[in-house]
């Protein structure tokens, strides 16, 4: 019984990984016409990926999903809007502020701004710029989860908020400095980590299924969408303030 569950999880993970292996093998052998280097290492790595993915998915069902839903239910039962919104903001802010991908992007953005003569290229000012950028992204993700949770509670239709956000992004693109636009657009994508996404999804679905009159499908999703949209606006806004 248990072995058959484990085998099924492993088989699922092999299917998940198979496309990458096929694409890389195809380009290496057919297009670039080169042998696969260090075949032993590649196979060893692939086995690690399959084992890791199976464990991760098992852990999702055992812990991240249930804890997200349990928190949503407990907070909804407590009935205090303040604490729900506080939790939402803290979750978004704290999981983003130390995110390695964000730290890397912020450092790179500072480098570009320094080279482009937009800010003083001394080390101090670069560090300060990168820190400010990181803080504004983390704050915007916290705010995004907060707005998203507020939407679930009040039952606002998501498309007005998202389309409104798009309009703001478009307007800011016109006035924001050219150098920051690419980074701002990418910042939306890098903020939500693999551990945060399942937790946030479970929180939204849990809230929508606990609050009367909300549908888990229509209202429960959408938190991640806000978390990808607001950082773009904030990073461009940061660029506008810093560069004048």
């Amino acid at each position, binding site marked *: 019984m248990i072995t058959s569950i484990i085998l099924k999880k492993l088989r699922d993970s092999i299917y998940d990984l198979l496309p990458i292996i096929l694409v890389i093998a195809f380009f290496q052998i057919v297009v670039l016409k080169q042998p696969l280097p260090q075949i032993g290492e590649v196979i060893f790595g692939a086995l690690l990926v399959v084992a890791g993915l199976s*464990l991760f998915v098992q852990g*999702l069902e055992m812990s991240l999903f*249930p804890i997200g839903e349990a928190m949503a239910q407990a907070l909804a039962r407590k009935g205090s809007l303040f604490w729900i919104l506080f939790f939402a903001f803290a979750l978004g802010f704290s*999981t983003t502020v130390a995110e390695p991908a964000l730290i890397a992007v912020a450092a790179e953005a500072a480098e570009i701004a320094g080279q482009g003569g937009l800010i003083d290229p001394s080390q101090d000012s670069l560090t300060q710029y990168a820190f400010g950028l990181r803080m504004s992204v983390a704050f915007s993700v916290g705010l995004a989860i907060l707005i998203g949770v507020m939407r679930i509670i009040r039952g606002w239709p998501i498309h007005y908020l998202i389309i409104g956000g798009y309009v703001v992004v478009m307007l800011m693109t016109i006035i924001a400095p*050219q150098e920051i636009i690419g980074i701002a*657009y990418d910042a939306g*994508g890098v903020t939500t980590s693999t*551990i945060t*996404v399942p937790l946030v999804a479970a929180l939204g679905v849990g809230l929508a299924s606990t609050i009367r009159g909300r549908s888990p499908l*229509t209202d429960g999703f959408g938190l991640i969408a806000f978390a990808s949209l607001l950082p773009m606006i904030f990073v461009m806004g940061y660029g506008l303030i810093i560069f004048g």
Partner: protein
Amino acid sequence: MEFIHYFSKILLGTCRDVLPIIILITGFQLLVLRQPIPHLGRLVVGGVYVVIGLALFLAGLEKALFPLGKIMATQLSDPAFIYGTGEIVTRVDWKAYGWVYLFAAMIGFATTIAEPSLIAVAFKASEVSAGTISQWGLRITVALGVAFGISLGTFRIVSGTPLYIYILIGYVIVIVQTIFAPKGIIALAYDSGGVTTSTVTVPLVAALGLGLAASVPGRNPALDGFGLIAFASLFPIITVMGYAQLMHWQATRRTNPH
């Protein structure tokens, strides 16, 4: 030995990722909710699975697939491969980059299928919709969107056209689709834009973007290397809503044939 050292570094990173979540949830349980956490033992075991699983996953990717994928991205965008050795390239011919577009599309599709965040969201969506939204259906639709998006993104880098024009047109398409799409799918479609670009996709796609921007004559990596992730977040929204519209349209046509 070297690998154990390397693995423990990744494991430490994953632990740091969960640390704020643990502090936040424990703090809330103790100070605000003042309740014991139900099924604590199971949660802890599951949490350990998540951390170790993710660390193994990342270590395996960085050991086996990322180096090869990154070398490939550089080789495919190398002018010597594209125009043949000995040619002196003065003008960029966007038609010569066929293999790059194909590689971008295929690697975008493949990495999205393996993306753990998307697996999690597809699982939830299928559970919540009582199976109407199939896990593989959603994942393949999203992956097709990423494939198209990244392929178009590489074309943008090669042709040197401004990023914002593509994104603005994409937004207009999303807004028009939102008016016509079935209401139930909209939130999920918007979410699928954000989950596609995570641990697997970002490193390979960023390598492709920076590699291309550095090797295509006249492009500046600082200005043109960014933006592929934005493409990968935008196009899945379009494909997911498009797929839902198609299903909806087929269903209505079946019920009233005239």
